[in-house]
């Protein structure tokens, strides 16, 4: 910028900092920081929220040094496919390096959100000890810690507002960890322990929530019996979001009416989840709050269609619905008729491995929802059959999709009526939905669908591909198009070396690329690594047989490949099954 320095000096620093405080979005702040050195300096001192999408993209110490005033940090570790056991368990994503650097440089840290990282009890103890003002701990899909670590958090974080544990693997070795919350702890707003496997001392929990008047979110684990839910609700009628414990008990009219009135007493309830082992008996107890619900997660409840319909038809204001495919097409038609404000739908498979009776959840359900719910913008749908015609209809009905994830459970499934690949259907989706940010493909697909995606999906940020494509052209279309692509994950596709090497520069504009069971060779990876010093090219080889990777020939096939941009160079914590090529 011509004369950049001069006009930046027109105002004192405080004015610019005040201006920057109106830029919450990282992208905007990053852009401002690039304008001139003065702005870089000012912006870094005023940034208090940092998001690190890949924990290995930057050295923790460097991040901490650059932004000394950070109060809230969010960090992600393992690649997304780790959720499906494709990443070796010792791959990495350890949180220690970050927690140690933050303890050193951000003593005033208040919020920490970690996703897909390995968090040890030592980390939790360090957090509990070092951050005097710590308020929010959110752990999503993490592992490596136990309830002993949680005890340390409970005992030491005097101003704790949020303890949000979402789908973590937590070792249960400290049965009374919740007793470590001191009597003086009255600040809890969110307590989510749904993923804990062990018994919970409900009396301790009752006393805890009884003294936290600001508690808005309470999500219990499946060990909390239904009878005790009544007592908990009496102590927290101000709840906005409730995750029940076990939602089954011996049928007892007295329990039913007590439960019903306890739930009705929660006048602010907007979200419900949990429902472990729920059967039809106690579902009607929530009828009184259905009208006010905006979020309903029944995806762990094996309730059949008719009961689901009775329940969901009452939820006129539902915005988010997560449910099992037991709802079937009929149920989704009822949802389409009742839930006109629906924005997000997720339908999970009750039987992913196909051993039980087939469920009547087909493309018809998806079409019905797309037709009946004008505000729908996010879909995750597991099913067993699909047609291009259905997808075309969905695309026409819902041009506002931001997230479309369709999983046809059998790989390579064609349009079951025409026996054609589903290229036309998915192409219609990307061409119609101009704001699509996330897309997951499935079914029988040729390179044609990738041509459409590359050309049309201009806002696409994340793409998941499995068992699709004919050859290199497919990957080339994606990498040479999709201007805003950040994350690409591919498994079991016949994509090889050429599109990777031809589009090497693209990889530096993305956060990461995962490829497994494709046709990439070691030679191409070596070339890529040499050509692109700002990429870590990780080759993952779990078999450990034969020669070490350094001695393998160029034509050696690469089973799993993870490439990500980084300014930190090769990481130092690679396990034996991971090689970083240079």
């Amino acid at each position, binding site marked *: 910028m011509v004369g950049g320095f001069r006009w930046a000096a027109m105002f004192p620093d405080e004015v610019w900092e005040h201006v920057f405080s109106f830029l919450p979005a990282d992208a905007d702040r990053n852009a401002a920081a690039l304008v001139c050195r003065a702005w870089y300096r000012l912006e870094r001192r005023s940034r208090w929220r940092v998001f690190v999408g890949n924990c290995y993209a930057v050295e923790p110490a460097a991040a901490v040094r650059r932004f000394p005033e950070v109060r809230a940090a969010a960090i992600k570790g393992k690649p997304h496919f780790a959720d499906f*056991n494709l990443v070796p368990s010792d791959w990495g994503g350890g949180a220690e390096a970050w927690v140690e650097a933050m303890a050193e440089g951000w003593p005033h840290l208040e919020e920490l959100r970690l996703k897909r990282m390995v968090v040890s009890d030592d980390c939790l103890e360090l957090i509990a000890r070092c951050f005097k003002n710590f308020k929010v701990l959110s752990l999503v899909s993490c592992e490596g810690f136990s309830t002993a670590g949680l005890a340390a958090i409970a005992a030491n974080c005097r101003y704790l507002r949020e303890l949000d544990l979402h789908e973590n693997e937590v070792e249960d070795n400290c049965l009374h960890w919740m007793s470590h919350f001191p009597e003086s702890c009255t600040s809890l707003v969110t307590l989510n322990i749904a993923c804990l496997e062990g018994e919970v001392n409900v009396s301790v929990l009752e006393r805890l929530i009884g003294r936290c008047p600001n508690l808005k979110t309470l999500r219990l684990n499946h060990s909390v019996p239904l009878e005790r839910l009544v007592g908990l609700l009496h102590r927290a009628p101000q709840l906005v979001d409730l995750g029940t414990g076990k939602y089954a008990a011996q049928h007892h009219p007295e329990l039913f009416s007590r439960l019903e009135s306890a739930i009705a007493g929660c006048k602010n309830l907007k979200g419900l989840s949990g429902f472990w082992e729920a059967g039809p008996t106690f579902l009607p107890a929530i009828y009184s709050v259905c009208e006010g619900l905006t979020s309903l997660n029944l995806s762990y409840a094996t309730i059949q269609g008719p009961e689901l319909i009775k329940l969901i038809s009452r939820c006129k204001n539902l915005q988010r619905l997560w449910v099992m495919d037991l709802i079937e097409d009929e149920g989704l038609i009822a949802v389409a008729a009742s839930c006109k404000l629906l924005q997000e739908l997720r339908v999970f498979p009750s039987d992913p491995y196909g051993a039980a009776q087939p469920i009547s959840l087909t493309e018809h359900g998806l079409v019905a929802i797309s037709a009946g719910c004008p505000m729908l913008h996010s879909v995750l749908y597991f099913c067993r059959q699909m047609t291009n015609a259905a997808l075309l209809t969905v695309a026409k009905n819902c041009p506002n999709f931001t997230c479309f994830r369709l999983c046809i459970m059998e790989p390579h499934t064609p349009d079951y009526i025409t026996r054609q690949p589903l290229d036309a259907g998915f192409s219609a989706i990307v061409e119609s939905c101009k704001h699509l940010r996330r897309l997951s493909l499935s079914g029988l697909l040729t390179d044609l669908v990738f041509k459409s995606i590359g050309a049309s999906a201009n806002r696409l940020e994340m793409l998941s591909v499995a068992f699709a494509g004919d050859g290199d052209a497919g990957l080339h279309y994606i990498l040479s198009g999709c201007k805003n692509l950040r994350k690409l994950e591919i498994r079991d596709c016949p994509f090889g070396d050429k599109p990777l090497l031809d589009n090497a520069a693209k990889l530096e504009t993305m956060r990461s690329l995962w490829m497994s069971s494709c046709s990439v060779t070691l030679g191409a990876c070596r070339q890529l690594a040499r050509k692109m010093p700002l990429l870590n090219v990780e080759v993952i080889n779990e078999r450990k047989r034969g020669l070490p990777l350094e001695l393998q020939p160029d034509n050696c096939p690469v089973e799993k490949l993870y490439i990500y941009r980084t300014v930190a160079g090769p990481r130092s914590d690679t396990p034996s099954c991971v090689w970083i090529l240079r």
Partner: protein
Amino acid sequence: MSTTETGNSSTTESAVSGLDYEETQLTLAASGASRSELERKRGFSEGVDLSLETKDFLSGSSDEAPISGAGEPSAAKAQVVGWPPVRSFRRNVLKSCTYVKVAVDGTPYLRKVDLEAHAGYQQLLTALEEMFSCFTARNYPNERLVDPVNGTEYVPTYEDKDGDWMLIGDVPWKVRSSSNFTGNIKGFGSHVEAINKEELEGAISTIHGKHHSTENNLDVCRFMQTASLMKSSEAVDLAPRTPTGCITAR
């Protein structure tokens, strides 16, 4: 890896030498099927060792089926790793819903069957037949729990929350159905899907008075507090907890 050369236990040689050609012939049937066939032809002990050899030989191609006879998917197609893309958390929760206890008259302990693992009633009944065909049968690798003094066989059991005696091994180690057990039985660390020899040894040595102080076995020790090894013969005296004369699923 040749079956005749593997010398893991002294019983291997005697088992192999006593067999005719057809019985040693290795097939690529689902490991569950071949194992139970072999069991019917021979007693328990030889069946275990031979099936172990069979499994080792085939292990290059087969995936890790749980060692316990129950709960194996009878679907013919192999499962692709990580497909469909359902998170392990969700998969575990789904699995834990479909186990039921099954009792048979004459068996003092119950078996747990994963309903989801069987495609229909026919398969379920077949599996139940196999499970209860000889109630001392346990397919533990190399593990025959025999009192060296009097030769009595032991089976490892435990008493669960409802007071039922259950045979160990029906439920994969990592299943999240802690409501059915007196303690947390989740295995430590990586993907343990079945009881392996080390964990079983840890459990048994606890009963014999040795305490495993390593963290890895902490859960196993707690879990085994109410467990015992039952002599197979003595076990017959225990009254079954279900009405006699029928298979009851709970």
